[in-house]
């Protein structure tokens, strides 16, 4: 025989302040939990989305990032001629040998002051078809042979001189901004893109940093990897583009997650202590009631379940409050340095339904743990004594 849940709901309303305090305490923990994981989530998502599974990214053998890599022109021609490279509609290979430079740019606005390290990527004109998720949202593509650049959507507003028609100065040259592009929310949106043959000389570079190409047969990645890494004329590492960028998010992504779990773990412990206090007080003040329930024939098991449910109910309310507190951060843009590439990347807090659900489960867990011992005390209470 079960004790109806409405009994618990009414009991909670009997002591509104205490219930509200406990729920709000749990709510704050859940809010921090969701908020911090949304940060880690957004960061990872930005990098994971940067790559495509159909594309191959090539670095010099042993290089762990585009920054530390370099590819000679000769290697680039060998790679471009590979039979694994897809051919575009215009009959040319879908390849983008890229220059990758980090430049200092002054940030604007209140976010943080000082210089940010921004990626300038020199791309080939074919890049717009090699990378499928690119979309020019305003303006036109940079023309080959001119010092024109396209800026990522997340650059606009955070840096000066990034509007179309304005002039950005870097590498000792003036560049006209001719377009703004999106790339599915990825890290590319924090970059400035110009033509590779324009970017290389101003930074006095003789080599490219990476090469990205579209696979002719999307399923033949392993084959392409084997063939290119075995080629004696070049020494390169071959990555699936998506895997490479995902791996670049490993370090910071894990730091953020570990931090989130440690901070909320400690907070949760405090909230559980609060819940234990509340539930013990509830049990103590209602001992005659509990005795009556037991006398009426409700088995101790039901009393245990009932008090657990009561605690879980408080936690659930807390969880919902936490979700509501955390929700507004969704989509908020923040930035940090991705130490794997030594450059600043802007990304949005990302709250997913799954994350909200885990926040709720987390709240319930706090409630159940906090309620267990008090509920057991209630169930084991000696009836006669309490009634007297």
């Amino acid at each position, binding site marked *: 025989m079960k004790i109806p849940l409405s009994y618990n709901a009414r009991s909670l309303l009997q002591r509104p302040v205490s219930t509200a305090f406990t729920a709000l305490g749990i709510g704050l923990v859940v809010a921090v939990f969701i908020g911090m994981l949304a*940060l880690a989530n957004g960061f990872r998502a930005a990098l994971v989305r940067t790559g495509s599974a159909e594309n191959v990214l090539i670095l010099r053998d042993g290089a762990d990032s585009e920054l530390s890599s370099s590819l000679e022109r000769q290697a680039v021609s060998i790679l471009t001629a590979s039979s694994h490279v897809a051919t575009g509609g215009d009959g040319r290979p879908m390849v983008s040998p890229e220059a990758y430079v980090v430049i200092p740019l002054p940030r604007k606005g209140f976010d943080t002051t000082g210089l940010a390290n921004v990626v300038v990527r020199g791309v080939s004109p074919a890049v717009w078809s090699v990378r499928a998720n690119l979309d020019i949202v305003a303006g036109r593509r940079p023309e080959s042979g001119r010092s024109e650049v396209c800026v990522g959507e997340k650059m606009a507003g955070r840096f000066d001189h990034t509007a179309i028609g304005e002039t950005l100065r870097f590498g000792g040259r003036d560049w006209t901004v001719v377009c703004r592009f999106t790339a599915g929310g990825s890290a590319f949106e924090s970059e400035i893109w110009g033509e590779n043959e324009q970017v290389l000389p101003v930074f006095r570079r003789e080599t490219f940093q990476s090469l990205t190409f579209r696979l002719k047969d999307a399923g033949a990645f392993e084959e392409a990897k084997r063939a290119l890494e075995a080629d004696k004329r070049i020494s390169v590492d071959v990555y699936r583009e998506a895997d490479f960028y995902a791996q670049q998010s490993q370090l910071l992504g894990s730091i953020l997650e570990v931090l989130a779990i440690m901070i909320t773990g*400690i907070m949760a412990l405090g909230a559980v202590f609060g819940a234990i206090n509340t539930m013990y007080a509830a049990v103590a003040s209602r001992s005659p009631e509990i005795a009556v329930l037991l006398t009426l024939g409700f088995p101790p098991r039901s009393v245990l379940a009932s008090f657990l449910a009561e605690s879980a109910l408080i936690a659930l309310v807390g969880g919902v409050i936490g979700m509501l507190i955390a929700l507004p951060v969704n989509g908020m843009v923040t930035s940090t340095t991705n130490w794997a590439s030594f450059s600043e990347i802007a990304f949005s807090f990302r709250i997913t339904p799954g994350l909200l659900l885990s926040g709720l489960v987390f709240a319930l867990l706090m409630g159940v743990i906090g309620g267990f011992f008090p509920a057991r005390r209630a169930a084991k209470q000696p009836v006669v004594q309490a009634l007297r």
Partner: protein
Amino acid sequence: MKFFHLVLANLGRHKRRTLLTIASVALALFLFASLQTVVTTLERASQFGGARRLVMTNASGFILPLPLSYANRLSAGKGITNVTWANWFGGKYGDNKAFFAQFAVDAKSYLEMYPELVVPEDQKQAFLQERSAALIGVRLLDRFGWRVGQNVTLQGTIFPGDWTFTIRGVYTPSDAVINDDMMLFHHEYLEERIGRPGIAGWYIIEVDDADNAAATAKTLDDQFRNSSAPTKTGTEQAFNASFATMWGNVSLLMGTIGLAVVFAILLVTANAMMMSARERTGEVAVLKTIGFSDGTLFSLVMVEAGFIALTGALIGLGGAKLLYRLSNFNAGGFLPGFDVTTRTLVIGTGIALLLMLASGLVPALRAARLPVVQALRRVE
């Protein structure tokens, strides 16, 4: 206070509740101290810098090199007492590709310029005299179990291939804000192996008078403005500060979380105090009847709240201080000198006092204002 035993008796009545509440306060302040220390450590790092040291990087981006030929021109500059240069190496160690910072430096001038790196004289000489020698931070000895005299091989990421160095010296930083997990080796060795491209990552320039630092920096930048690689020169402090801002808005994040933590614990504590007060309504009425003044009853509750808050603060703040001290924590090299500052401890104690006020005030006022007759009637 002559009624202190009464406070103790009240605290001891619900031992479990008292302990749990103290524990929540302790956890909250531990967390507060930890978060705050992240901020203060970054702040400290961004304020660090020798007043007479300038850092010169490539104006087009600090990852781009400068010609090694600048060294002579710099040394000849007016008011410049010393010049050294360094290069980021970016090697990985071992099968699991462990990362730590390595710099190729012009050894003699670098050690002259950084007296903060304390090296025993014999080790220093041994390091200076051997081309492939390395000088490592004391933390690396523990981290990898290395010994002086041992050969270590790194895999280059920027400069490909396997690089073997012989550890000849161990430095201990005299200022905790300097990383104790770096490896320094000879720039000459790097140049030689990569075919003498003649590059330096950045220059560090010592001026004779800190007051001339800004003017010297400007003169140097003007001097190189129209050369192959224009430069950007600033104080070492400004250079470090710009690194610290690379983290983004850490202090806002930490501050927000800290606020949430403190507020959550305030709720827990206030709740506990109110529950205690409610259960004691009858007693308070009795105490009033036998002549306890309103003021005394008010302070009894406040002292009880204060005891909980301050004991929690002592455990939480003291625990944080000790833990980070003893464990020599540095967040994997990102936060060297991670130590809870006195200021953080004071702020933490201030929060505990606020906690006492906020959690104790309502119950204390209620106790003081309790109408005796009504309360006694309710108790029967």
